[in-house]
């Protein structure tokens, strides 16, 4: 069972996701902003971060990923983006500025089963 940090400013999504994760025995912590999330990560060292990109501003989640990449204590924590932003897959591209890569990308609405399956997958890859 993993220690998961859920970062999102939508209380409805946070409550339903927390319940789904706790039902599978995961320990869940929550943060409603990027700043709060980074402080919690430094203190609690979660095994995985579920992150919304768009919070109080559009790129807030990506700023969190960028800060994590700069911090040796946080750079290895896997990040799954769970976002309301609609992304399309493209073959070749230049990632924006210095934004780091994420471990997975899910678009809301996401079913609890789909989310749990992806969490398992990312944690398995990380443990390997």
């Amino acid at each position, binding site marked *: 069972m993993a220690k998961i940090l859920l970062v999102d400013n939508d209380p409805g999504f946070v409550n339903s996701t927390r319940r789904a994760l706790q039902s599978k025995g995961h320990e869940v912590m929550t943060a409603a902003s990027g700043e709060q999330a980074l402080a919690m990560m430094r203190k609690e060292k979660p095994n995985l971060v579920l992150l919304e990109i768009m919070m109080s501003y*559009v790129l807030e989640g990506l700023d969190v990923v960028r800060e994590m990449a700069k911090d040796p204590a946080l750079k290895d924590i896997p990040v799954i*983006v769970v976002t309301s*932003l609609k992304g399309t897959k*493209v073959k070749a591209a230049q*990632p*924006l500025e210095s934004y780091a*890569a994420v471990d997975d990308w899910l678009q809301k609405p996401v079913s609890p089963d789909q989310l749990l399956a992806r969490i398992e997958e990312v944690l398995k890859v990380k443990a390997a």
Partner: protein
Amino acid sequence: MIVQVKGKPEFIQIQWIPRYTTMERVVHWFHTATFSLLAITGMFLFFPFFQPLIQGQAGITFRLIHRVAAVIYGLVPIIYLILQPRRFLMHIKEFLPQKEDIGWLKAVPAYYLLGKHEAMPPQGRFNAGEKLNGLITIIAWLVFGFTGLLMWFGKGVIPPGLFRWLVIFHDLAMIVSVCMFLVHLYLAVAHPLMWNALVNMRFGVTAVDYAAEHHTKWFYGPKRAMELWEAKKREGAH
């Protein structure tokens, strides 16, 4: 805006960002429709040269349309408040002026007339012009509601002197809000630099490039938006 997913060959590209919720758009379009009806029927009642057209049954019909539209116009924000109180209050808070709004308003003529964007301080989800429009809309809603209800139900009960003042305030609110409505309509529909405005309110999304340029603080966050603006100003000075 492009993000890489580790271990996968493809990238995630984001071109559109959600800017307005469905509720915000429904409220906006109901408000627009009822306000337009109120403005048109109100003008027939307001301008003396239209008076011959609204005699007898026509006058009764015009007053009825005006009142039905007024009830819907009055109820729309109240329904929004009841259904989504948190979002409603957040929305009102976003309309409150901030110190950089003065700089934006000062720089606005050079932007809209000459296309010079450099002097404009970074803005949030709403720019200072949209905030001004929002605040005038809220104040006008309060004035129309207060004066309109008293004029509707208080005729013959309210002293004639007070009734006259109610009519004057109702008319003043109409003049100010119709002027603001026309400016808003021109900028949203016709101004070449505001190419994304109508898309925003029709589909609820805004283009990434447009958001980065017009709503920098909302896009990049306050800290980075100020850094980018300072850098842009330094570049402009050289």
